[in-house]
């Protein structure tokens, strides 16, 4: 198991977990969201191949009301 930060919350996941797997498990692999890992955008096409490493910082963003 490794530990990663998802939206600033610590999570324990299996080594080799892909971003796609993580997002699916969190119920967030839907349209209208975007993901950054360690400060870089990971495009949707790369989710299935992107593996998370120990200490990775994942930010999952979506659009909300704002002026």
């Amino acid at each position: 198991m490794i530990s990663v930060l998802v939206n600033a919350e610590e999570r324990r996941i299996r080594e080799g977990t892909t971003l796609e797997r993580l997002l699916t498990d969190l119920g967030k692999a839907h349209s209208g969201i975007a993901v950054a890992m360690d400060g870089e955008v990971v495009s949707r096409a790369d989710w299935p191949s992107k593996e998370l490493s120990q200490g990775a910082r994942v930010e999952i963003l979506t659009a909300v009301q704002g002026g």
Partner: protein
Amino acid sequence: MVEQHGPNGSEDPLVIAGHKLSSRLIMGTGGSGNLSVLERALAASGTELTTVAMRRADAEGGSGVLDLLRRMDIELLPNTAGCRSAAEAVLTARLAREALGTSWVKLEVHADDRTLLPDPHETLDAAEQLVGDGFTVFAYTNDDPVLALRLEEAGCAAVMPLGSPIGTGLGIRNPHNIELIVARAQVPIILDAGIGTASDAALAMELGCDAVLLSSAVTRAQDPERMAAAMRSAVHAGRLASHAGRIPQRFWAEASSPPR
């Protein structure tokens, strides 16, 4: 219902980066606590473009607004509100492009939470990076005529000076600066922030702005739908007046009836 024809009775679209919008009022979605009230206000405003913010997907308020805007066929202008540095704003813009499939962005980099004034250095830096990365940048800026020119030179598609700080409703505090910005601009100038009531929006257009962007003035009004309709009328009236050639201001009276 306000007729949306132009000063000559013809179509008078707002053209930004080659894209035509028939409404010169851009109403943001911020500040509304209720989606059905927001829906009625957006409809009354006649806006075709609206702002949204990017936040963590587990934050509250994330559900619903995108579905609403898609249903209403209103285009999205994601903002970078809350960003304090160019680096943060650039990352947020890239995330918005990925999430929403638009390369349009309302760039805002705030210097502090109390004034929410734009940080000029970080804003210009971010604008240069985003233009270089293919974004269509709407730059929120202070009412500084020099900075407005620099943002245009950086390649921004529209420059958006504030009338007064965000959410204050203090109107346009330095109308002459807005006129100076308009006088030299080759890109659309959109008055953004500080609008409190309809006369502020009309004044922005009379000063020569190409459009008005507002949120709280409508969403936090006691009757948002009615205020949205008022803003729509005001923007239209101000646009007509700006092209109608107002009379010069005089110190002494000048009779309009013939002498007896």
